[in-house]
């Protein structure tokens, strides 16, 4: 099953989509290289699905252009563009057998019965569903339906496969298994995958290229590990999970390190490189939750000169297997969490209500650009690290 020889790189050029007064996608430009597994990640309403549908040809941009393989696909039907879509609930034709579902596009093209059924059977064998050829979709389980949907899309030899929340209809166990399947398949086929999801862990697990979106705009677009370790904005840091976002006013800058004072009076440092932020300006920074050391404060008073340590009360403790999620109340609106490894926690346990000191190494601090997102504080559900 050779993939289309036209290249499958995708380019969005200043694309905007409006629905009446509502702007779903706001002047987005993006380049997805051929053969990449790209995930569009964001909460509902961020525009990721709209972008997917515009690439597919099911929506037209209000402004801007979409190019695939270097040529503009404006006005072209999905088939002509070389894209195929896997719908959220699979949309398998309920009145056709699995075989006929897969062979559908060939039938539309006019292939005769023998020919198209044979090709369909070949594809079904590849996804290990050939024994189910004569069943109706309703007789299949969720995972099986998904594979049929995949086969149905792939028979058109697309250069780009678009997946609209492909795993959300499955239960937890299947989700994890199918994740691997999708990744494996993409590598085998060598075509571009664009996968839309709102689940952070799923996205960082499958993607080569991760695009975090909010309110119609791209917040950050990079590889998953770069996004996880160096989130660009506070929005991305909060959404991707596993990070604490702190902020403070600049007191001084020297040797590429800015010293800040936060609202609670604690001293923080942040690497600023060559930039010279003004004294008194507000900077945002992130520190990974698993890079924080927690110790009881009793008797322990922090050196007033020491930076990157904060003091608060333990608000809650959640056991998560390999670590304990310790939420510390800093008398600030933003949540502060330390993921303490189970070994460390057993060695020096804390309880709810304890006064504690949380410290981290300056080298682990990352500077964030502005406040990101819509400006108002939206705390997203933490990503649970397994």
């Amino acid at each position: 099953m050779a993939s289309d020889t036209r290249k499958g790189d995708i380019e969005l050029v200043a694309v905007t989509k409006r629905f009446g007064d509502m702007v779903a996608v706001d002047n987005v430009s993006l380049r997805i290289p051929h053969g990449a597994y790209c995930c569009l990640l964001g909460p509902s309403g961020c525009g990721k699905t709209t972008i997917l549908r515009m690439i597919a040809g099911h929506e037209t941009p209000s402004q801007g252009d979409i190019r695939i393989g270097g040529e503009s696909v404006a006005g072209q039907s999905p088939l002509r563009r070389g894209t195929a879509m896997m719908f959220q609930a699979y949309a398998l034709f309920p009145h056709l057998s699995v075989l006929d579902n897969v062979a559908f596009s060939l039938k539309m093209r006019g292939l005769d019965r023998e020919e198209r059924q044979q090709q369909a059977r070949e594809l079904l064998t590849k996804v290990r569903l050939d024994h189910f050829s004569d069943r109706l979709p309703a007789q299949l389980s969720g995972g099986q339906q998904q594979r049929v949907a995949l086969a149905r899309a792939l028979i058109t030899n697309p250069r780009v496969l678009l997946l609209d929340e492909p795993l959300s209809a499955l239960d937890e166990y299947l989700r994890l298994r199918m994740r691997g399947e999708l990744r494996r398949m993409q590598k085998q086929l060598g075509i571009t995958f664009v996968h839309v999801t709102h689940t952070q862990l799923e996205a960082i697990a499958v993607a080569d290229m991760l695009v975090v979106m909010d309110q119609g705009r791209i917040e950050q677009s990079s590889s998953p590990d770069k996004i996880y370790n160096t989130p660009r904005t506070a929005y991305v840091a909060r959404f991707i999970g596993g990070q604490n976002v702190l902020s403070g006013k600049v007191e001084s800058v020297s040797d590429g390190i800015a010293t800040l004072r936060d609202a609670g009076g604690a001293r923080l440092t942040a690497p600023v490189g060559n930039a010279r932020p003004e004294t008194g300006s507000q900077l945002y920074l992130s520190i990974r939750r698993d890079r924080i050391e927690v110790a009881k404060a009793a008797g322990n008073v922090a050196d007033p000169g020491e930076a990157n340590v904060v003091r608060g009360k333990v608000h809650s403790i959640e056991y998560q297997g390999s670590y304990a999620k310790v939420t510390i109340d800093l008398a600030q609106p933003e949540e502060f969490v330390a993921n303490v490894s189970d070994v460390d926690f057993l060695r020096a346990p804390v309880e709810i209500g304890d006064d504690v000191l949380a410290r981290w190494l300056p080298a682990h601090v990352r500077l964030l650009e502005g406040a990101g997102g819509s400006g108002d504080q939206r705390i997203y559900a933490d990503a649970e690290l397994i």
Partner: protein
Amino acid sequence: MHSTADQSRPWTFYALAAFFTLFVLFLYGPMIVIYVLSFQGPNGGLTFPLQGVSLHWFDALIKQERTGDIAGAFRRSIGLAAMVTVLTVVLSVMAGLAFRRRFAGAGLVFYMAIASLIMPGLFVSLGIGLVFQMLGVTPTWYGSALGAQLTWTLPYGLLIMFAVLGRFNRAYEEAASDLGASNWQRLRHVTLPIVLPGIIGVALFGFTLSYDEFPRTVLTSGSSNTLPLEIWAMTTDVTSPALFAVGTVTTVISFIVIGLALTSIALIERRRLRRVSSLDESSTVG
């Protein structure tokens, strides 16, 4: 109303069930009386007791003694119903598809259809009769009566198509386009087959409403009667159980048609909606 763990029924269940049973008896009782009475003996009257059991009155129907032109009326009713069914299905499906988009005048057409539904049949009959009279055209069962019956069946067909297409998931159509189907192919291979049960429903309504239709046909069928008109004529001088025999026969036909339609709908739906437990999964995901 109660948790599924609670298997016992409150007393209200039994009271309501009794009420429901009485209601069903109320609905079917009199009809059953007629069926029984149609087997009345040759000397029997219009009420019980049965004086012998016989097929005498059915025989009388066939031989057309005392019954007017039953065979002809019957033929006409079936023919008319068939025509009405086909027209209702085609026109309602087309119009139903039209209403999926907004178009100027949609509201007007909709209200006209509803008005046609609620309007007393006799008035429609009167109107059509007058129009034909003014134009000097003779009303006929295959012309004016056909049109009159359509004013009754088309609104029903349209409403059914609304319900069916409203529930129809557009994702199927998008998937079809995605796979290269043209608009026409999409309609033919995806949309219509999926809403087929609804279309059968429209056909069912078309047939039964036409077959039993009386008020709209009464002034528009011209010189030849349809079956309901013939029955009406018989009621005005009810002298024999032949009327009951007619009733039984015509009801049996209705039941057969209904049975066919409902069975096909049930079969289609059952094949498409069967659920499978996800335990099947483990054996096949490699």
